[in-house]
């Protein structure tokens, strides 16, 4: 009964089973979506629902073709993507950095956390008009809105992650006479990484909301802008198109973060 074989044998089989389960659930979701979309198109084509007032899959496709041909879809998508990503990086970056560095000053961290809970409680959407007036109606204000939306969550969870480090591990480091900066670099930061990634995944949604809401309030371009204008003109197909592209954008960003997480946080095996 060797130690080595016991621990390594089951893992590949389990991984394969997981992969198969993931594929079947993806397949099921795809199948349900296709059925729903088909029903929608049939209902619109037969006039059971007002295809023009509610939009229809065929209408959405046609709208997409027009938007691509007119050269508006791609620039709008890139605008919102830029605002979301830059806002996410700035907001989360600052939040995570600050949250982790607060580990050095535990007395201040209580106060800082109180502030960030307060900041988090403010509905960022309510801050929207303020931000737009301060920063103008170009991309800068949307980046700031996205950043603010992600900052508080990032800071609170990194602060908590830094504090949650195993007491015994901390003591072990101290027993080896490690300086606080060493403890921070070699223990606090690596152990907080799994938390940081899950926060990032959540923040993608917040950043996107911040950017889109900013575009609703005042903008020249972007998917939120297109959706807002289309809604006022009762052009529901464009609204649906905007929603679909925004969803795809959020999904893509989440996949990227998950991919990075798998590469960097190699020690968390999925059970």
């Amino acid at each position, binding site marked *: 009964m060797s130690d080595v074989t016991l621990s390594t044998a089951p893992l590949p089989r389990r991984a394969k089973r997981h992969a198969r389960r993931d594929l079947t659930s993806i397949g099921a979701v795809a199948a349900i979506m296709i059925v729903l979309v088909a029903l929608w198109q049939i209902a619109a084509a037969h006039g059971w629902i007002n295809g023009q007032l509610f939009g229809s899959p065929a209408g959405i496709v046609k709208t997409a073709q027009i938007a691509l041909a007119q050269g508006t879809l791609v620039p709008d998508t890139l605008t919102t993507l830029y605002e979301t990503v830059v806002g996410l990086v700035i907001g989360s970056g600052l939040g995570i950095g600050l949250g982790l560095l607060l580990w050095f000053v535990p007395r201040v961290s209580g106060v800082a956390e109180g502030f960030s809970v307060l900041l988090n409680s403010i509905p960022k959407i309510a801050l929207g008009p303020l931000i*737009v007036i301060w920063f103008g109606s170009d991309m800068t204000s949307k980046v700031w809105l996205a950043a603010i939306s992600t900052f508080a969550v990032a800071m609170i969870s990194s602060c908590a992650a830094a504090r949650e480090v195993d007491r015994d591990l901390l003591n072990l480091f101290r027993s080896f006479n490690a300086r606080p900066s060493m403890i921070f670099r070699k223990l606090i930061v690596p152990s907080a990484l799994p938390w940081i990634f899950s926060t990032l995944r959540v923040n993608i949604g917040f950043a996107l909301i911040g950017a889109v809401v900013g575009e609703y309030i005042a903008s020249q371009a972007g998917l939120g802008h297109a959706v807002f204008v289309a809604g006022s003109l*009762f052009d*529901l197909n464009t609204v649906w198109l905007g929603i679909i592209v925004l969803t795809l954008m959020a999904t893509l960003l989440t996949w990227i973060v998950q991919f990075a997480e798998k590469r960097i946080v190699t020690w968390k095996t999925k059970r």
Partner: protein
Amino acid sequence: MENKTVKHLRAACAAAFATGLVAHGAYAAPPEKVVVYQAFQSIQYLPLYVGIDKGIFAKHGLDVQKVTAGGGAAGVAAVIGGHADFSLQDPMTAILANLKGATLVNVANVVAGVPVWVIAPGNSPLKSATDLAGKNVATALPPTTSTYLLQRMLKEQNIGDVKLNTVQIGTELSPVGAGRSDAAALYEPQADEGLAQGYKILYAFPKAYPGGYAFSTIDTLAATIKTKPQMVSEFVKAIGEAEALIQSSPATAKAVAESEFPTLSKGVVDSAVDRLIGQKIYAENPEISEQAFRNALDLQEFVGNIKPGSVTYASAVDNSFAKAASGK
């Protein structure tokens, strides 16, 4: 012990009270509840507020509840969805919904002129519209009539290279104050707010449109006209009376405006109302003439939201109530 005068006084009061009760009793039917969705709380919509605040709707047996929708499309959507009996906004919004299958009809004109001005700070080197070439103008996020009018004016006068800074309606002055824009295209009361700070007018849109302009109207569902014609008729009559009252008594109009916009300085409110009356922006009667309708439609066709030939006056307007209200 009472003296004779007091006794007579008491009797007279009792008699008056009794008469009042009887008179009130004769009007036994309770007022009909009516919901109106307005696109914004706007000083341009003063006829509606005068109608409510001065009891004109009540006199016509209507208990009008006004709801601010936050945009023209939301108001129209409320009428379509049955949450509102009427909505007040750009008639073209109702037309756009009709093009998608809705059945809205415009029944009364409220804003019969074009309440849009282009202004710039007092110390700005800009003097007229042609100076806007190459400059940055703050204007409301489309789809708004002010922005469309600006775009058409710039095109017709060949003023090139103008950057539009589109912001939330009502905040057009902020970018100018912050130095990000050189001028602003806006409605009242922002126009008079700016003028009060020393701004000057570069271009004024309220020029006479022959036949008027259907800028903001009251619309309702065709079904409502069929099932409640009496209610629609009373509503339009009341609007007409309110509009007449504004023309005959600007002081009353200003008083209502001041109470509806308590956060604005009285000076600004009064100048705004004066300007809107003087430039004939407020409809003098609720009729929507074919020409007025056409003028509004031309703009939407210019912008490309509506294809020429897809809308007719007859399909979009029912002027009969307005005509009856004007006594014709």
